[in-house]
Each structure stands twice: as C-alpha cells, then as structure tokens.
C-alpha cells in the first residue's frame, strides 16, 4: 500500500490534464460529427436534386412527346377531312350541283373552316398540356436547385456546428478557468 499515496498524488495532479483532455477530445469528436452530419445531409440533398433533375428531363420529354403525338393526330385528321371534303364534293356533283360554286362551295368552305378550327384547338390543347409538363420540369429543376442549396446549407451548418462545438468547448474551458 506504500505506492497508494504517491499514486493518488500523481492522479490528483494529472486529473486536471485528463479532464481537460476529455473536454478537448469531446469537443473534437462533436465537431467532427457535426461536419460529417453536414456532409451526409448535403449528399442526401444532392441525391434528391439529381432525382429532381431527372424528373424534369422526363417531364420535358413527355411534353415533346405530347406535341409530336398531337401533330400526328392533326395530320390524320387532315387526311380524314380531305376524304370528307372529296365525298362532299362528289355528293354535290352527284346531285348535280356544281361543287365549286354556289351553295356547295359555301358548304365546303364552312366544313373547311370547321376543320381548321379543329386543328387549331387540337394544337392549342397539346400546347397547354406540354406547357404543364414543362412547368413540372421547371418545378423539378427548381426543387433540384433547392435541394442542392439545402445540401450546401447542411454542409455549412455542420461546419458551423463543428466550429460552435469547438468554440463552446473553448468558451466552457475559458469560463471554467475564469469562474470555477
């Protein structure tokens, strides 16, 4: 037991250093953790942003596809209408009428007018739908931008937290040194 007293004395002398070391280690760990947390969150946000951008591209493709499909339908409609118009002229002529004058002409012009309006409407509707999809794409891109900003912010927050931890530890030690 003769070594107990010197050991206790040495332990007593080393206690402040040990406790100070624990404080520094804790602060460093906390800071590292905070940085890692920030980075992880940034990575998650970046991932989300990538998803958003991909979704935007999909929406743009959908818009293009919608317009292309509507134009194709218009072409089909125009084919159908010419068939209709030819049938109409045939009917008139069959009935004896001169198809390119008078009432047959007027009727043919009215039908053509209707067909033109149909095509214009179709195009308009397609454009609106494409526009909606493009809006979605835009929203996704904006969300992607926002997520990247969140990521950067989280990264910065982690660093700031790390700094806060270190600063807090230093402040605590200083306070203790001052006021303990």
């Amino acid at each position, binding site marked *: 037991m003769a070594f107990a007293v010197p050991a206790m004395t040495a332990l007593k002398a080393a*206690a*402040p250093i040990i*406790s*100070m*070391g*624990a*404080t*520094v*280690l*804790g*602060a*460093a*760990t*906390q*800071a*590292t*953790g*905070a*940085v*890692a*947390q*920030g*980075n*992880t*969150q*940034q990575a*998650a*946000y970046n*991932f*989300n942003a990538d*998803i958003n951008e*991909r*979704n935007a*591209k*999909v*929406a743009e*493709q*959908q818009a293009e*596809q*919608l317009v*292309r*499909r509507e134009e*194709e*339908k218009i072409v*089909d409609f125009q084919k159908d209408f010419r068939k209709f118009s030819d049938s109409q002229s045939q009917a008139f002529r069959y009935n004896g009428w001169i198809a390119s004058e008078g009432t047959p002409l007027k009727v043919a012009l009215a039908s053509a007018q209707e067909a033109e309006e149909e095509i214009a409407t179709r195009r308009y509707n397609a454009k609106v739908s494409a526009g909606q999809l493009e809006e*979605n794409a835009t929203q*996704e891109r904006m969300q992607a931008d926002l997520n990247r900003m*969140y*990521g950067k912010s*989280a990264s910065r927050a982690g660093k700031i937290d790390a700094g806060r*931890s270190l600063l*807090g*530890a230093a402040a*605590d*030690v200083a306070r*203790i*040194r*001052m*006021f*303990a």
Partner: protein
Amino acid sequence: MRVPTYQSQTELTGSVPGQRFTVSANPGALSQTAKAFSGLGAQIQKEGTDFYNRLLSEQRDTELKQAQMDYKEELGSLKLASLSASPSVITGDGPKGFEALAAKLQTKINNGLTDSVVQKRFKLAAADATTNAYITVKQQARSRQIDAAAATKLRYAETLEKQAVYGNATERNEALNELYGPVNEKTGLRDGVSFYKRMAGGGLITQSAALQYEQKSRQTIDRYDIEAEIISADDTQSTVTAQRLINRLKDPNQFTGLDPLTRLAYQQKAVNLQQAIESKQLTDSEARERNSAADGTRARKTRESILGASILDAQAALVHNQTASSGNQKAVNLVTTNTVNQALRDGKIGLEFAKYANDIITRQDAPADVPAVVTGFTDEIIEATTDKQLEDIRKKVLKSGGRNGTVTLNTQESLLRFLEQQQSGTTEALDYKFYSRQLNEQTAKVDSNGFMNLLSMDNDQVERHLDAKLTFYKLTNAPANPMAPEAAFNQIVRQFKASQQLKVPFLFSHPTIGRLLGYKNDQSREQFLSNLTNEKIIAAGQKISSDDSISQIEKSFENETMGLLKDEFEKFQVEQQNK
C-alpha cells in the same frame, strides 16, 4: 370504284420511356450516425468540462480558503499587535499603519498563490477582511484615543475636586463651577451642564457614565468636606463642631451628593466622634483630678521626707553632741511629737508617717528585723510596677516599725530610701533587681515559672535563704559605703555555699574570718565544728573589730554570725557528748 388505300392503324403513343422518380433521400436519417457521433463528443465534452469545472473549483476553493485562513490568522496577529501600538500610527498612512502592514501581508500571501484567478479572488476576499479588520482596529484605536482623552479629562476633574476641597473659597467656587456648573439662583443648586455631561457630549463617555461620574464626584467632595469637619472636630475636640456636623448630615439639603447609606454611615461616625470627644473630656477631667491627687501625694511625701530628715538630723546632732567637745557642738533643731501631730492634723503628713516619725522621736524601735518581712518588702519593691503599688508598700513599711514592730527604725529608713531608689529606675536599681533574682535562684527552690517555693524547703534552708537575702539587701543599701550588687551577690553566694556545706541555718562568715575559724573549702560540718574552739571564735571576733578592710555593716553581720556560730558550736558539743 373506289380505289383501296392503306390506312395505318397504330397511333403514336402518348408515353415516354422515362418515369418520374418519387424516390428521395432523407438527410436527417442519413446523418444519424454522424449526429450520434457528435452527441457522443458532446457528452464527452460535457463530462470533461463538468469534471474539470468541479476539480478546478475544488482546487481553487481549497487554495483560496487556505490563503484566507493564513491571511486571517496573520491579520489577527496584526490586530492584536495594533492594540499596543500608538493609535495615530496604526491608523495612519505610514509604513507602520495597519493598512500598509495588511497590504504587505496580503502581497506576501498572494505571491505564494499559483492560480491567477485565486489570486484575484484572494485579493477581493482579503480586501474585504482587511476592511473589516481595519474597521475594528480603527474602532479600537478610536476607543483608545477616546479612553486616553477621557482619562486626561477625568484626571483634570480629580484636580478640580482637590481644588474644591483644599482651595480657598474663590478657588473652591471656580472648581465647583467648572465641575457642576454655576449655582442656579432659582433652585440654589448647581444643576447646570456639568463637566462630565460636557465629556459625554464630546463622545468621550456615555451619558450614564457621566451621571455616575458626577454622582461619584459630588459624593467625593462631600466626603472630603465631611472628613475635614470630622478631623477638625477631632483636632479641636469640639463637641459643638461634631454636633453641627451631625445636624448637617441629618439635613437632606446638605451634602446632596451623598447616597443614603454613606450619609447614615457618616452620621454614625460623627455621633461616635462626639461620644468619643465627650468620653475623652470626661477621662481628661478624671486624669486631671488624679494628677491633682498625685501632686498632693508627692507634696505630702516631700513634706514627710523633709520632716523625717529633720528628725534624723536632730537625733544625729544630739548623738554627736554627747561625745563632741563644747566647741564642736552642733545646733539641734528638735522636732517634737507635737510638731508631728500638728502636721498630721493639718493634713501635711500621712498617718503612717506620723506614727513612724513619733516612733523615731520617742525611740520606739522594734526588737529586731524579721528577715522574712524585710526581704518580703525588698522583693515587693523590686517587683512593683506602678506608683500606687510603691505607695502601698511605703505605707506598709511605715506601719511595720514601733515597739512591737517587725522592722527596726534603721531598716525602715533604709527601706524608704531603697523604695525611692527603685522608683528612680537607676542602673544600680536595675542591677539590684537582677542580682536579687539571681540570688533567689541560688539560695531558694524556684519552680519552672521562676517563683520561689519556700514551703518545699526545710527551716534551715529558709533561714539561710532569708539571711542571704537580708544580707544582700543590707550590704547593697548600707548608708555608708554600700556594696555593688554584683560584688555582694558573689560574696553572699560563696558564704551561702559554705553555710550549706556546714549545715548551719545562717549565712557563714566572710572568707577572711572563715580562715581564722579554721574553715577550709569542702569541709564537712563535723570536720569544721570538731576543730573549732572558743579561742578561735574569740580571735575571730577580735579580728572583725580590728580589720579595717571589713565594712561597718559587714562587721555587724560578722558579730551576729559569731554569736550564732557560738550557739551552733555549743549545740554541736552537746550532740557529741550525747553520742
């Protein structure tokens, strides 16, 4: 006929190959590990910080408390030392001032501290302790200053009290004015602001102390005054003064500073004094009367001495004229019994002396001195201690003469002279007293208390003793050529031893005569008496008559001894014949 045309059947699809992903990463969930890691760090930091905080607090607290204890201990010593320092020095700004000493002490302890925070805290605490201690020190110093000032003032008040007591009327009035304020004309009392109240006003003493001091001061002055009156009454032995003091003490408006008990005690003292004075006056009166009586006695004794001397002178002249030639006759102033009796009637002499004088005139003498009576008188005279005792002995001596008396006229006269001599207390008288006592021890049985015990002695011993005492008295008091007490003592002791040796009931002869009788030292009665002859006795008698070296008184003793020796010789011869 209608011409057949190909119509495509499939419409363009509205779908696109890509799908919108709904998948998303949760940043919070992804950062759990890091968050936990950070939390661990935070906990470690918290624990470390808390531990460090407690540890440091404890260390600092311990160090601070130790420093405070050291400081308070040293400060206590400083406070103690400050009690004996000069108040002005200890409260001053100098290097010996309390603050400077405390600062020095503080610096010393502070320099021993390793932690700067503890140093700062110690400075604060020490400053606090120093301030508190300094307040105490200042209060004590102030108290001591006040005490010193109060002591000075009180000494001055004492001076005023003495001035009031010992000074003349003006000085007394001035002192009383200063002590108790001037006399209030309305009340007749000194009830103004007193010296002590002014002291209290100055903060030197409390109001209650001022009252006590004033009461004590007034009482002191009153006591001085009373004591002075008592001394005055005692000095002058005046009962009037004593009575006046008693009256004043009974008056509550007089000596107003006295408390009732003291007043009562002084009243008793004054009454006692008055009674003592009256008693002394009575005693003095009696003493005067006694002195007057003593004077009368002395005058009577003087007249008796003169008358006695006249009688003896006349008788001596008559004796002288019987043998003197006609041309050498002396004038005789004869004193008759009528003269003596007239003097007695006139009260000029006493009855005892008148008897003695008439005995002389008419020659009424005793047949012989009775040794026991004479030696009794001498012992009484030397042991007497008062005049009255001596006077009583004188009367007894005067009465012991006469025809049927026990003391002869000559011895009476001798005893009267001896009495006067012993009364005078001369060296010879003291020597006589000393050797007389020595002779008692040598010739009689004396007990452990120094008293003679004659009853335990046989007749011969008593007679030898009385003869030795009577001879000692007569040798030392002979009218002509008295022997010194020491010489008489030595001679009588030798003779006494010879008497003892010879077993005779009288004092044996002078050595000179003894040799003529054939006496040798250590000779037994038988040896001496068997060698003695009537011729030797006759030859010795002749020698006594013719030897001028032997005084007259010794000769008379020796002649008497020869008679007794002759009787003893005859008795011895009868005894021898009867054997």
